[in-house]
C-alpha cells in the first residue's frame, strides 16, 4: 500500500495550535515575565484564527477521520474566543493567587487543541483522542492552585469522575464497533441502515453509554455531581474556561455523533435526552436558588444552561443545531463576562466569592456593578441582551419541531432562574456596603470586559449576523 500524503490544509489550525502550545511550553523556560507568555498566547491564537480562513480549510481529510466544515469551524471560533478571554482575565489573577507559572498557558492551549479536534472528529477514535487531551489538561488546570485544598479536591473529583465518563465512552464505542465493525461516524450510520440494526438492544446500550459520557462533559443531570465542587475549587479563571470550552466541545460532539452516526434511531436517543434535559434544567435552576457562593451558583447556572441547549439537540433539525451553536457562542460571552467581574473582586487576602461580598457594590464600584447587572440579565434571558436571543432561537426551533410542551417547561424554569440571578443584582444595588471591596483591575481585564459587554449588548440588539452565521454553518 503506497503511503498517500493526506491533505493537511483542513487540519492547519490544529497544526498551528500544536506548534503554539509547544512553543509556549518551551518559551516558559526562557521567559521570566509570564505576562509575555500571555501576550504570545493571545497573539498565537489570533494567528490560528486566521488559519480558519485559509483556502482549502473546509474539507475532509485523513480518510474522513477529520472533518473541517462550517459546523466545526463555528465551534472553533467559540474555542478561540474562550481561550483569548480566559488568558485576558487570568493575567493579574494568577499573580494574586501566587501561581503565576508559564505552563498554565500551555495547558490552556492544549485543552483548546483537544476541543478543536473533538469538534472536527469524524471518527470515534479521533473524538476520544481530542476528548482525553482536553480532559487531562483541564484536570491539571483545575488543581493549579497547588497549596489550596479546595483546588486539589476539585482536580481530584474532576479527574476521578472524568475517568469514569471516559470509560463509559470507550465501552459505548466498543459496542458500536462490535455491531458495525467501524468507528467512522458516517459508516456507522450506513451500516445501521443497511443491516437493519435499529432497535437492537446492544445499539441502544451503546448510545446510552455514549450519551452518559457526553452528558458528563456538559454537566447534565444526573451526571453533574462533579461540577459544583470542581467549579468552586478551581482557579476562577479556569472555572470560566471550563464552563464554556469543554461544555461547547461536549455539545459539538453530541451534535456530530448523534446526528451523523445515529440519525436512523433518532427516536431512541431523543427519549434518552428529553428526561436528561428536563432534569438538567430543573436541578440546575432550583439548586442554584440556595447557593451562597457565587462560583457554585454559576456552576448550577451553567448546568441549567446546558439543559436549554440540549433542546436544540433534541429537535434534531438544522435550525435546532444552529440554535444550540448560537447559544454556546452567546453563553461564552455572558458567562466569561460574569466570571471576569468575579475575578476582579479577588484581591490579596480577600476571596470575594460569596454572594454577600457583592453587597453595595454599586456604591463602591458602580461600573463593575453595572457590567455585572448586564451579564446577570443576559443570563436570565431578558432582552435586549444576547441571552434572550439565544434562548429565543432555541425555543423557536423546538416549537417548530413540535416540542411545545418542552419549551413551556423550559420557560418556566427560565423564569425561576430570574430569582437567583437577580439576587446578585439585589445585593449589588439594594444593600449597603459592609466593607470596602478593592478591585483588582488590569488593562487586559478591561479589554475582556469590554469585549464581552459589547458582544452581549450588540448580539442582543442586532443578532441577525450571528444567527445567519450559525444557520449557514450547519447545512
Amino acid at each position, binding site marked *: 500500500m503506497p503511503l498517500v500524503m493526506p491533505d493537511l490544509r483542513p487540519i492547519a489550525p490544529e497544526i498551528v495550535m500544536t506548534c503554539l502550545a509547544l512553543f509556549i511550553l518551551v518559551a516558559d523556560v526562557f521567559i521570566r515575565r509570564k505576562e509575555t507568555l500571555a501576550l504570545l498566547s493571545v497573539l498565537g491564537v489570533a494567528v490560528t484564527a486566521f488559519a480558519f480562513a485559509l483556502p482549502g480549510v473546509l474539507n475532509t481529510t485523513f480518510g474522513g477521520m477529520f472533518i473541517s466544515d462550517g459546523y466545526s469551524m463555528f465551534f472553533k471560533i467559540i474555542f478561540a474566543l474562550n481561550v483569548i478571554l480566559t488568558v485576558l482575565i487570568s493575567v493579574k489573577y494568577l499573580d494574586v493567587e501566587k501561581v503565576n507559572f508559564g505552563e498554565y498557558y500551555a495547558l490552556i492551549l492544549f485543552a483548546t487543541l483537544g476541543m478543536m479536534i473533538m469538534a472536527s472528529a469524524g471518527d470515534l477514535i479521533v473524538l476520544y483522542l481530542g476528548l482525553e487531551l482536553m480532559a487531562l489538561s483541564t484536570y491539571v488546570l483545575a488543581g493549579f492552585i497547588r497549596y489550596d485544598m479546595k483546588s486539589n479536591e476539585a482536580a481530584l473529583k474532576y479527574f476521578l469522575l472524568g475517568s469514569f465518563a471516559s470509560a463509559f465512552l470507550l465501552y459505548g464505542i466498543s459496542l458500536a464497533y462490535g455491531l458495525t465493525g467501524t468507528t467512522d461516524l458516517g459508516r456507522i450510520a450506513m451500516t445501521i441502515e443497511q443491516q437493519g440494526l435499529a432497535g437492537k438492544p446492544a445499539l441502544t446500550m451503546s448510545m446510552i453509554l455514549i450519551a452518559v459520557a457526553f452528558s458528563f462533559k456538559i454537566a447534565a443531570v444526573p451526571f453533574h455531581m462533579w461540577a459544583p465542587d470542581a467549579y468552586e475549587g478551581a482557579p476562577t479563571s479556569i472555572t470560566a474556561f471550563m464552563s464554556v470550552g469543554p461544555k461547547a466541545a461536549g455539545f459539538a460532539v453530541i451534535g456530530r455523533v448523534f446526528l451523523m452516526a445515529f440519525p436512523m434511531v433518532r427516536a431512541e436517543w431523543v427519549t434518552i435526552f428529553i428526561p436528561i434535559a428536563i432534569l438538567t434544567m430543573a436541578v440546575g435552576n432550583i439548586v442554584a436558588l440556595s447557593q451562597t457562593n457565587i462560583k457554585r451558583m454559576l456552576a448550577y447556572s451553567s448546568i441549567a444552561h446546558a439543559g436549554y441547549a440540549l433542546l436544540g439537540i433534541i429537535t434534531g433539525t438544522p435550525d435546532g443545531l444552529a440554535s444550540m451553536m448560537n447559544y454556546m457562542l452567546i453563553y461564552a460571552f455572558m458567562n466569561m463576562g460574569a466570571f471576569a467581574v468575579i475575578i476582579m473582586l479577588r484581591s490579596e487576602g480577600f476571596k470575594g466569592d460569596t454572594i454577600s461580598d457583592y453587597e453595595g457594590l454599586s*456604591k463602591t464600584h458602580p461600573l463593575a456593578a453595572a457590567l455585572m447587572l448586564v451579564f446577570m440579565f443576559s443570563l436570565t434571558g431578558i*432582552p435586549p441582551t444576547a441571552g*434572550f436571543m439565544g434562548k*429565543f432561537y432555541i425555543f423557536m426551533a423546538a*416549537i417548530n419541531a413540535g416540542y411545545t410542551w418542552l419549551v*413551556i417547561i423550559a420557560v418556566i424554569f427560565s423564569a425561576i432562574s*430570574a430569582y437567583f440571578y437577580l439576587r446578585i*443584582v439585589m445585593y449589588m444595588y439594594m444593600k449597603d456596603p459592609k466593607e470596602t471591596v478593592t478591585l483588582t483591575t488590569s488593562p487586559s481585564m478591561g479589554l475582556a470586559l469590554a469585549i464581552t459587554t459589547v458582544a452581549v449588548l450588540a448580539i442582543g440588539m442586532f443578532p441577525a449576523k450571528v444567527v*445567519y452565521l450559525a444557520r449557514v454553518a450547519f447545512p
Partner: protein
Amino acid sequence: METNGMGFPILSTLIFLPVAGAVLLLLIPRSKEALIKAVALCVSILAFVISLPLFTAFNKATHAMQFVERQAWIPAWNITYFLGLDGISILFVLLSTLVTILSILISWESIKNKIKEFYISILILEGAMIGVFCALDFFLFYIFWEAMLIPMYLLIGVWGGPNRVYAAIKFFLYTLVGSVLMLVGIIVLYFHAGRTFDILDLATRTYPYQMQLWLFWAFFAAFAVKVPMFPVHTWLPDAHTEAPTAGSVILAAVLIKMGAYGFLRFSMPLFPEAARAMTPVMLTLSVIAIIYGAVICLAQTDLKRLIAYSSVSHMGFVTLGIFALNTQGLEGGILQMINHGIVTGALFLSVGVIYDRTHTRQIADYGGVASVMPVYSSLFIVFTLASIGLPSTNGFIGEFLILLGGFTANQLAGVLAATGIIIGAGYMLWLYQRVFFMETNAKVTGLADVNMRELVTLLPMVILVFWIGIYPDTFLGFMHESVRHLIERVNTGGAPGASAIAKTVTEILQ
C-alpha cells in the same frame, strides 16, 4: 423603508431619544447632580414636544396605522423593525411622554442617592414604554415589553420603601412568568401563520378554534398579570406601595395600561372567537376585581396601598368595558385607561408631595391637612372626585360609558359594577376626610404648602381631568374608527363553523 409623512422617523425618535439621553447621563460625572437632573428633564420635555405633532397630525378618519416605519431587522427570522400608531395606541404614547416629565419633576428633591442611576432608569423606561405602544412586530413588542422590566425592577428595588426588595422581586417574577408563557404563544402563532411576526398580517388570518383558546390563555397570562386582573393582582399593592413616587406614578399611569392594551391589540383581533367565547369569564373576573378591590380599600391604613387597591378596582372597570365588546364599552375602557393614568398618577404624585414632608404613609399620621396646606387640599379633592367619577370630571365619562356598555352586554355585570362606584365614593371620601379634615395631627402642623415645582407637576393633571370631563370628544375622536374596526373584527372574525362552537361554549359557561 416606508415613509410616515412627518419627514423624519418620529416614533423611532421618541423611543431612542430618551435612551440616548440615558447614555448621555452615563457620561456626566456623578458629582454634578444638578446637571444630571437638568439633562434628564430637558430630554423628557424634548420627547414630549416631539410627541405633540402626533396629536395634531393624526388622521382620525381611518383605522389604518399611521406614522409607520418599517425596516428589516433579523431577516433570518423574518423579523422587521415595524412601528406605527392607531387610534387605540396614540393616546398612550402622549400619556407616557407627559408622565415621564412629571415623574422627573416630582423626584427632584426626594431622590438623594444614586441620582445618576435613577434618571437613567427613568429615561430607559420611557423609551421602552413608548416602544411597547408603537411596536407592530410581535417580536419587537416582546423586546420592549420585557426590557421595561429591568429599569422598573431597579426603580422599585433601589429607591423604594422599607420592604422594597420583596416588592421588586415579586413584581419581576409575576410579570416574567406571564410574559414567557406569552412568548411560547407568540412562537406558536409565528409558525402557524407561516413565519411572520407582523401583527397587522396576523390579525387578518383565521386560526383553528382550539388553538385560539390555548393562545388566548397564554396571552392572558401575560396581560392579566400586568393589568392586573383578579386573582393575579397581588404584586400590585406591594409594588405600588414600596416604589418611590416616580415609580408608582409610572406604574399606575402607563405600565398597568399595557395589559389592557395587550388585550385590545392582540387577544381580541387575533383570537376573536376565543375572545367572544371567554367573555363571561372575563366579565366575571372584572366584576370580582371591581368589588373586591373596592372593599379591600375600605380596610387600608396606608395611603399608597389604598390607592393601589383602588387601581385594581378601576382596572376592573377597564377590562369590563373592553370585554363588553361593544362601542360604548370599548371606547369607555380605553378612555378610562387614560383617565386612570391621569387620576391615579396624580393621586400618587400628590401622596409623594406630602410624603416628602412627613415621611409617613400611614393615614393615622395625618388629619387636618386642609388647614395647613390649603392649595394642596384643593388639588387633592379634584383628583379624589375624579377618581370617584363625579360628573364634569374625566372619571365620570369613562365609567359611564363602561357601565353603559357593560349593561348592554350583561345586565348583571353592569349592576354589580355600579356598586363598585358607590363603594369607591365611600373609600375615597373617607380617605379625604381622615387625611384632610378632623383634628390637626401634630405631625402635620407647620408643613409648607405646595411649592412652584410641585404645582407645575400637578396642574397638567388638573387641566386634563376637566378637559376630558367636559369635552371628551378631543380624545374619543381618536378612537372611533379604530374601535369600530376592532369590533368588526371581533364580531365577524373566524369561520362560521367555529363561531357555532363558540356559542355552545358560552352557553355552557353561563
